[in-house]
């Protein structure tokens, strides 16, 4: 346990002492234990490393660290061996002993654990050379691999809480706010509202106490950067919040985190306890007289609670229904007191702005969007993971240079950004520079940074139906246009995917969309039609194929497709017949198989099992 740090100078000496106690040349094995890697069973690998080190009497002589998410989730479990930063991926759960003996002790490289670029066939030894990492600017997220999220010493040893010390002892609250305004830090949670302005309004608002809230209720399906920051580097988020609290004049803060993120809840709890013990949270922080404390609240699994006023209702122990916002949260938010809400990634950017200055920060990015953004690149993409790039990076760079393109040589079709409130972006915009304003211009939005890649086997009408269906179940029901309107849009989309669409449906969808936008209180309703509108805008021909020709070009919509066997490709391996639950697929060994359409339930089992792409879906 760390004793209380009573001044900025003392903090500096603690950091120095911790840094001096660490030999940068000492070998260190780092294993990623983010939720993604843990899902691969990485805990077993961690246990085995500890065991093997103990067996060889190396504990202490070789450092071993578990860290938060490194971002390259596709290639987990991942191990990095410092100081050379040898990068091993898809490490077997029994490989620990071999890695210690060969690489750590003898400096030999284990060839089979190296990353091989699937496109060029080139092999990479060092983490920094891997194209996935090399083309990123890992400013905020990069610290994840340098710290054990449950160790405050790790964070202090890399200079953690320096920005807090600087802010509390050398800057006035107004100066901090001016710095954040000058840096033009925009909210990373979706809206992109300038954080500094919000801070300023909350500071100037009448009413005590003032609250600050961290929104970690990351509800966008396919986005998980906030979780990875919260669970991977919780002290960074805390540091940003404490600086914000000082600038705004708040003594009480809340972190609202999804209950589905147990590791994030655990790590932020631990970090808060450590920060309190060290005198960085609670009464009289760093001996400056400033006091601030935090509480954690777990969400109940409602997407709408990512919306500020709904989130406040939930924090107060009520159903999460939004209210009208003619009075801003900065005036009357939580418990009707001035409240400043920012999301995890926004808070995590703050220490960098204070530490290195607004000018430096504003030098990264585009004219209207500064700094970096973490995206979660998922779906039909070779390198699934979290990527951090400067604002203004093109979609093509993200998808192809970093993401490694589309698996199985299929063709890129669209990329969906902004979660259920966003839109689908077609191929012609691949060279667009991604920032808040550009995305909005083409009918999508930044959202929290989810990027879902789709290939030719994804049906855009089905995607619109999927998102609309999601929003039907997540609409809180308060505003009728949202509650009933989205439901009707969903029904129309279902009809289209079932071949019952009418030509006038597309116009009707567009008309309904504008009513829903006008008649909804919160952003859930007013952005709900985006997935429908953007798919109509860019993929109208696909809607028309469903409606006029009763055909699903991507082969997804069950009622419009039939399964058959390509006699040219079928080798008669019998696999499809084995997996078919209804006996529709049948045939003799080494002879071309057939699918009986009267028995086929279109479950897709044959297509997924076929190794020769011989199942035709039309």
């Amino acid at each position, binding site marked *: 346990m760390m004793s209380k740090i009573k001044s900025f100078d003392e903090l500096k000496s603690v950091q120095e002492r911790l840094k001096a106690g660490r030999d940068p040349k000492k070998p260190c094995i780092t294993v990623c234990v983010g939720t993604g890697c843990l899902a*691969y069973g990485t805990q077993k690998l961690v246990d085995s490393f500890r065991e093997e080190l103990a067996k060889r009497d190396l504990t202490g002589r070789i450092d071993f660290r578990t860290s938060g998410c490194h971002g390259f*989730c596709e290639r987990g479990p991942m191990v990095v061996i410092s100081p050379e930063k040898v990068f091993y991926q898809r490490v077997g759960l029994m490989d620990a002993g071999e890695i210690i003996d060969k690489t750590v002790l003898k400096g030999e490289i284990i060839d089979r654990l190296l990353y091989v670029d699937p496109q060029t066939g080139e092999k990479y030894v060092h983490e920094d050379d891997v194209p996935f990492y090399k083309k990123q600017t890992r400013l905020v997220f990069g610290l994840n691999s340098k710290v054990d999220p449950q160790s405050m010493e790790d964070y202090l040893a890399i200079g953690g809480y320096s920005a807090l010390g600087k802010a509390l002892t050398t800057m006035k609250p107004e100066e901090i706010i001016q710095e954040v305004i000058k840096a033009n830090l925009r909210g990373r949670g979706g809206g992109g509202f300038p954080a500094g302005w919000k801070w300023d309004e909350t500071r100037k608002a009448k009413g005590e106490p003032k609250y600050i809230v961290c929104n970690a209720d990351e509800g966008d399906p396919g*986005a*998980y950067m906030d979780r990875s920051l919260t669970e991977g580097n919780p002290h960074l988020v805390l540091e940003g919040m404490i600086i914000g609290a000082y600038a705004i004049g708040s003594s009480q803060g809340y972190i609202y985190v999804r209950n589905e993120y147990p590791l994030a809840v655990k790590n932020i709890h631990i970090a808060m306890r450590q920060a309190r013990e060290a005198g960085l949270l609670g009464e009289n922080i760093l001996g400056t007289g400033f006091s601030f404390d935090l509480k954690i609240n*777990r969400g*109940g699994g409602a997407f709408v609670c990512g919306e500020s006023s709904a989130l406040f209702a939930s*924090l107060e*122990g009520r159903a999460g229904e939004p209210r009208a916002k003619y009075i801003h949260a900065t005036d009357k938010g939580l418990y009707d007191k001035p409240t400043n809400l920012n999301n995890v990634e926004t808070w995590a950017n703050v220490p960098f702005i204070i530490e290195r200055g607004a000018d430096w920060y504003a030098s990264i990015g585009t004219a209207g969007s500064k700094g970096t953004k973490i995206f979660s690149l998922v*779906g039909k993409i070779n390198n699934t993971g979290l990527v951090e790039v400067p604002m203004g990076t093109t979609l093509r760079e993200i998808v192809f240079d970093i993401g490694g393109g589309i698996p199985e040589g299929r063709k890129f079709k669209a990329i969906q950004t902004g*979660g259920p409130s966003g839109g689908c972006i077609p191929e012609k915009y691949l060279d667009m520079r991604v920032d808040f304003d550009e995305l909005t211009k083409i009918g999508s939005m930044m959202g929290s940074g989810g990027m879902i890649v789709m290939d030719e086997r994804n049906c855009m009408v089905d995607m619109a139906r999927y998102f609309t269906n999601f929003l039907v179940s997540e609409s809180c029901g308060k505003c009728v246009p949202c509650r009933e309107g989205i439901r009707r849009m969903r029904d129309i989309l279902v009809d289209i995917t079932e071949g019952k669409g009418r030509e006038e449906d597309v116009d009707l969808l567009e008309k309904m969309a504008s009513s829903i936008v006008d008649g909804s209180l919160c952003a859930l309703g007013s952005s709900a039609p985006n997935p429908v509108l953007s798919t109509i805008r860019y993929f109208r021909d696909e809607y028309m194929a469903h409606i006029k020709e009763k055909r699903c070009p991507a082969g997804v919509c069950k009622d419009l497709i039939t399964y058959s066997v390509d006699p040219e490709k079928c080798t008669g391996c019998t696999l499809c017949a084995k997996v078919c639950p209804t006996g529709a697929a049948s045939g003799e060994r080494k002879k071309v198989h057939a699918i009986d359409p009267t028995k086929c339930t279109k479950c897709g089992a044959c297509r997924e099992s076929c190794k020769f792409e011989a199942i035709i879906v039309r």
Partner: protein
Amino acid sequence: MEEKVKEIIQRYSGDKSYLVPILQDVQKEFNYLPKDALYAVSTHLSVPVSRVYEVVTFYKAFSLKPKGRYQLSLCMGTACHVRGGELIARNVADTLGIKEGDTTADLEFSFETVGCLGACALGPILVVNGEYHGHMNIAKSTKILKKLGKKGATDDEQD
């Protein structure tokens, strides 16, 4: 039951604003939210039972019905959807003979689809009693169900 509820409320010092986490803990204790537990929360937290009911029915995380011995959650995040999650959902529901969100009559299986689990590299993902089974497909899901039905063990399927 009342004692247990009281103890959970104590953990939060009887603070009403923690109604949602309190109910989460109660549900964890009893596997669902029995009617009596709702009344106990209402009494000891001094919150009208109508408010408790409103909150319980608003948030997706709560269940008023008992859950099965094997709780299956299929991720339906966008990444899992584009990789064919829906076909798997249909297969699991059909195989169990229940609808999404329901429990089999013998209280053996509950099946639900959930929002993003944030392990998209492994998608589609089926979670069986907290254990992740990644890169799910139709055939694999059938196999898992078969195993659970036959032997009733969840730890024998390795990816």
